[in-house]
């Protein structure tokens, strides 16, 4: 067991989880003294019929203000517009239904309406918020990002072409409601990468430098919930118990990584997202085994421990201790292959096989140097067990592009 000399941990989001968790929302709002919530969501969620499920479940609550116009890459204009609607309608709280973009937007709206701010920018950075905001209840509709328990919001200003990050414990929602009905209709080819994103949060939280006993506990259970259910759910999307397990796993992984941070898988993943616009979860699924391989000489003992939640007690016991880390990496690679098979090839296993809607390759080989360069500027690199320079980046990214295991002789050890 690892006990650091010093650490900090904070997660004060109430979790309400179950197959009928939505029905508790009226009570939850009443507890928060909220009478007129604004419902914020996106077209995808609305189109999947989830708003009807929610409004049906929250009978008695004023549901007259529902805004479903949050784009997948939310931005300052959207936040300002929604804040205007909130004020015009005299709302007193927010219910956000959606994935990361909806939740970030809701957090942004909450800053403006609570602080009566003209300019959201004034509150960017860390520590700019000094008091609680309006009640915020979030209903995640993907089991992945963990945004329901994270204290960060990222909002783009498209006119200035910048992204603003907001960090504050006051951005934490008051309640996260995990209901299996919210993720039931998520198509398998999206379920797979989002769950792999959650798995990556837990694995990196457990193996990177800012780990602590409380985040470890969350990470370990998150991994077993996700690993035990991901393939089943992708094969049988209507498996309610499996859906709820993934939702719980993603939330626990979110609590773990927002306290102990993530490492190189996210550094490179953010960069591939920025340079080539590949969805975040797709990058995570591809890069996770490479991150563990690269760090093996540093954090292999921790990766070895993860074989237990990843593969179960029998496999763990049957694997000699010195082979457990490699076996854990192999289990994750097999997971990706199984997801590829279960989605008829829509779940990409390596960068060169990712195609956009028109069948065009999304990560052309000539973009790899730009990806490596951008990744060197990603903050999560600080928390990675081993250092990385440009050449190290290229070795990892090229292997993940080709889909071959890392050539371990190329890893520079100190």
């Amino acid at each position, binding site marked *: 067991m690892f006990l650091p000399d010093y650490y900090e941990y904070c997660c004060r989001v109430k979790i309400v989880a179950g197959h009928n968790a939505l029905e508790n929302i009226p009570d939850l709002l009443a507890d928060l003294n909220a009478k007129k919530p604004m419902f914020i969501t996106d077209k995808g969620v609305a189109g999947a019929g989830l708003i009807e499920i929610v409004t049906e479940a929250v009978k008695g609550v004023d549901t007259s203000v529902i805004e479903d116009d949050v784009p997948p890459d939310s931005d300052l204009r959207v936040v300002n517009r929604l804040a205007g609607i909130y004020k015009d309608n005299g709302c007193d709280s927010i219910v956000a239904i959606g994935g990361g973009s909806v939740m970030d937007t809701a957090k942004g709206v909450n800053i403006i309406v609570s602080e009566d701010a003209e300019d959201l920018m004034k509150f960017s950075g860390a520590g700019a918020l000094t008091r609680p905001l309006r009640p915020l209840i979030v209903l995640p509709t993907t089991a992945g990002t963990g945004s329901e328990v994270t204290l960060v919001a990222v909002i783009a200003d498209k006119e200035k072409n910048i992204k603003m990050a907001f960090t504050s414990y006051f951005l934490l929602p008051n309640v996260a409601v995990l209901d299996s009905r919210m993720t039931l209709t998520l198509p398998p080819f999206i379920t797979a990468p989002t769950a792999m994103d959650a798995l990556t949060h837990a694995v990196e939280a457990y193996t990177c430098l800012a780990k602590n006993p409380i985040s470890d506990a969350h990470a370990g259970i998150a991994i077993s919930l996700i690993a035990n259910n991901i393939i089943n759910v992708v094969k049988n999307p209507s498996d309610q118990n499996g859906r709820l397990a993934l939702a719980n796993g993603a939330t626990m992984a979110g609590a773990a990584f927002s306290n102990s941070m993530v490492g190189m898988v996210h550094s490179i993943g953010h960069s591939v997202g920025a340079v080539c616009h590949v969805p975040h979860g797709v990058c995570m699924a591809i890069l996770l085994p490479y991150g563990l391989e690269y760090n093996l000489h540093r954090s292999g003992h921790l990766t070895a421990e993860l074989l237990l939640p990843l593969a179960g007690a029998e496999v763990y016991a049957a694997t000699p201790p010195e082979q457990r880390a490699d076996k854990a990496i192999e289990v994750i690679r097999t997971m990706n292959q199984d997801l590829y098979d279960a989605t008829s090839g829509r779940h990409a296993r390596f960068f060169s096989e990712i195609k956009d809607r028109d069948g065009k390759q999304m990560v052309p080989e000539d973009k790899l140097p730009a990806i490596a360069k951008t990744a060197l500027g990603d*903050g999560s690199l*600080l928390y990675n067990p081993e250092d990385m320079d440009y050449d190290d980046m290229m070795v990892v990214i090229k292997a993940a592009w080709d889909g071959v295991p890392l050539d371990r002789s190329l890893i520079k050890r100190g």
Partner: protein
Amino acid sequence: MGYQEIKPETKPAKKAYVSLMLWFVGRAIQAAAKTDDQVKKEFEGLPDRFTFSLGVMPQGPYMIVGKDKNGAVKYMGSNPHAQKVDLQMNIKNLEAAILLFTFQEGTAMASCRDRLILSGEVPDALAVVRILDIVEIYLLPEIVAKLAVKRYPKWWSPVSKNVVRGKIYIRTLLGI
């Protein structure tokens, strides 16, 4: 664990020690930017006239390093209020600064333990961390540097490392 040789005990002594280290590191960065290709390259990647400060909260000491109008890297003194600073790296308190400057804790571990507060652009901060690491590798004996940086580059050629080390020491002491 840790390298136990240097150990200032009282508060004024600690402050004086950290001031001296900051002064030395600041001048060493200026020297390294002239002599080491990697440091040169990292600075080239930073914006024009970029400046950063490294210091201790709440009242210092501090040191400021930056690029002047000709792009030359200069140690710019110890007063962060005398000029614009693009990136501030502040160590939360004197005790944390002592851990860092007695090399019992590296920069990466310090930030993992919430001892460093950054304000500025993250990519710039990472470049500065890489610069600090390289400078520490030159300034410190291997046994100490190994504790201070995440990965000690044992693949560097020892001959050229010692040549550059000598140059950096001379330049740092002379301030050129």
